[in-house]
């Protein structure tokens, strides 16, 4: 049963990823990416990481991708030609390089397969919110606080960079 679920979710994830990368319209890309993230949340649930699954949907899909969509709408970026119509050396080289990365990664996974363990039974409790909260506020207190500062800085930075000017400058 779990295996079947996994294969389903994995297929959806890969398909939506491909669609993100290849689609013509920017908005479509963003929406496919949202789908990708939701499927990944499902995979997290399979791995008994409940807290992270929910957070993934809330933060990534719910906040970050919304931000992306806002920006896409704001900039009103037009559609592009389909990728396969823009065959150029850059395209080919990029594809080859990406495939090489995949090959390398699969090789790495394959050669160390013997030493990889199965899912531990103790994971039931580990992925719980209470367990995460436990560690977060004790061991990881300092990074937690620093992350707060980081996010504040990011907000301020983003505001400053993107702030509205009287009229947008045109290219000289």
């Amino acid at each position, binding site marked *: 049963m779990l295996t079947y679920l996994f294969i389903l979710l994995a297929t959806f994830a890969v398909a939506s990823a491909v669609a993100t990368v290849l689609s013509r319209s920017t908005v479509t890309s963003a929406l496919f990416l949202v789908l990708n993230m939701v499927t990944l949340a499902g995979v997290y649930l399979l791995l008994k990481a409940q807290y992270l699954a929910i957070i993934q949907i809330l933060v990534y899909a719910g906040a970050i991708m919304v931000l992306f969509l806002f920006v896409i709408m704001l900039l009103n970026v037009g559609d592009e030609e389909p990728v396969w119509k823009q065959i150029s050396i*850059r395209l080919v*080289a*990029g594809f080859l*390089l*990406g495939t*090489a*990365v995949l090959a*390398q990664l699969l*090789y*790495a996974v394959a*050669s160390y397969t013997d030493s990889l363990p199965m899912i531990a039974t103790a994971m039931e409790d580990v992925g719980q919110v209470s367990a995460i909260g436990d560690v977060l506020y004790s061991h990881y207190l300092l990074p937690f606080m620093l992350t707060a500062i980081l996010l504040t800085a990011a907000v301020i930075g983003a505001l400053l960079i993107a702030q509205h000017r009287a009229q947008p400058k045109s290219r000289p």
Partner: protein
Amino acid sequence: MLDSASLLPLIIALPLAGFLINGLVGLLSETYRSRKTLIGTIGTTAAFIPFLLSVWVFLGMTPDSDPIRYHFLNWISAGDFVSDIAWRADQISILWMLFVTGIGSLIHLYSMGYMKEDEGYWKFFAYLNLFVFAMLNLVMGDNLLLLFLGWEGVGVCSYLLIGFWYQDILKAEAAKKAFVYNRIGDFAFLIAMFLLFRHVGSIQFDAILAGLGNIPADTAFWIGLLMFIGATGKSAQIPLFVWLPDAMAGPTPVSALIHAATMVTSGIYLVSRMSGLYALTPDAMLIVAVIGALTALVAATIALTQTDIKRVLAYSTVSQLGYMFLALGSGAYIAAIFHVITHAFFKACLFLGSGSVIHAMHHVEHELDHHGKHVRFDPQDMRNMGGLKAHMPSTYWTFLLATVAIAGIPPLAGFFSKDEILAMVFNAGATVSAIYYVLFAMALATAFLTAFYMFRLTYGTFHGAFKLPKRHPEAAGSEKYLHESPWTMTAPLWILGILSVIGGFMGFPDFVVQTFGNPDAHANWLHGWLIPNVSEAELVLAKPIKWGILLGSVLIASVAVWLANRTYGQDKTAETDATLQTRFGGAYQLWADKYRVDEVYEATVADPVLKLSDKVLAVFDLKVVDGLVNAVAGLTRFTGSLLRYVQTGNVSGYAFYLVAGVLIVVGLILF
């Protein structure tokens, strides 16, 4: 009461404190600089209290007592080489401590009067205190390195003080000359230290004394010779004596303190300290004696021709130092130290007296200026003086006492020390080598000349008529402006004058007492004090010979004084000089030209070096060194101009390189 050992750091620290207070506060605060009495009092006290403390330490010692040592801190410990900052007061160093601080504080007091009008008053006292500090380190150091530290320190202070009026380029050059010649000697000293360390394994004095057996004979010769060369630099002997006459460019208290009583005796101190070493090498001792005698005679002949008061005294100092080295070379360490002490008394007195005279002549110049007569003359030139004895009685009488002392007339101090030296030189002639007899003859000739030119100086300055109006008609009647110096200047003169009279009794010869009284009497206090501490040569002369030498030296001195009286004493200074000039012709000219030593050095050493550096080294510096630096810069620029093409501005290109790089690195890790 107080443990003598713990007084030692206090003795060292006080002059340093004086230097820091006067130096720092004077540097930072303008108002402090005008409080001259305060500055002077601080300076003098910083020298006087150490004197009192040294007296206390002295009173606690006997001729056989162990050296008092105070270990301050572990300074250097590098492998086998260990050198600490530790001070020692033993029978030799306590004598130096006493007269350095004693005469030092008298000169501080004198300077309060002499330097009163000078702007750099605070600097002067700071430097003087620093000098006392360095000199004390020199004589109190427990090892050669601390001695060397003090050695260099007094060299630096000498430079600072000679060049005190540095705005006059000639004075600054004199300071530089002093320092450079000192450094040449220091180089030899350093090599001697290295050799000593190599063979003995330590440079601490007790260890050296214990380890003397480890030194092979010819190394001992070289160590002795090299140390002596270092001493010739500091104590102005042939070949490095030429800086001392030029050093008279400094203020007179400096000449008195440094170049008569203290710094120049450092060389004597060093050789006396190392007497155990010199006992191993009679050849080195012979060289020391020969150079000493030669210097004494040469300097005396030059002094005969000089007209500047301070120059006469400077050459006289060189000559007397030659006497001391002659004594050292004959194995007469005690006699040499005796002469150091008596010479300090009468030479300091003479220099301070000359300072008083110069002070008065300056005053004449100022008064003439006030009355609208601008006469330019050299206040140190003897030919402008004369008849000062009526106007400056204290200065005259003390000067006269000191002159009689240096001439070697009994029973003043100079006679006793000089006689002892003569006896020991003759003794060396009998026991070591016949060459010493020649040196004895030279010493006798020098004694004659010393008495002669010193009385020439005294008569020319103080007797007869005041000559300034004769040479500069506008200065007619300026005699009335001459006056005696204030008590701060005359008090030290009297103290030193009295010491020049009675100071000799510390070394009253045994044989005189033995002839008239108890045949086993020991009247020579100084001899008894020092004999356990130096490798003194044995005196084998029979009593009649000793009496002969004594009476002979008195006779020679008396003849010289009588001759001087007959010529210079009758106010015939210029005429007598002229007579001498025609009588001795070329020789006189040679003496007046100071044997052309400066010119010889200039031609053989200074000029070639300058030419070399001009033609070769300057070019090297410009082309090679600068060229190298420029080449490096050029290389950087060139590389930069090639590398900049990496920045294409193409974002996807950057992404490509990024991924390719990751692939390569991960590949390297995997395979």
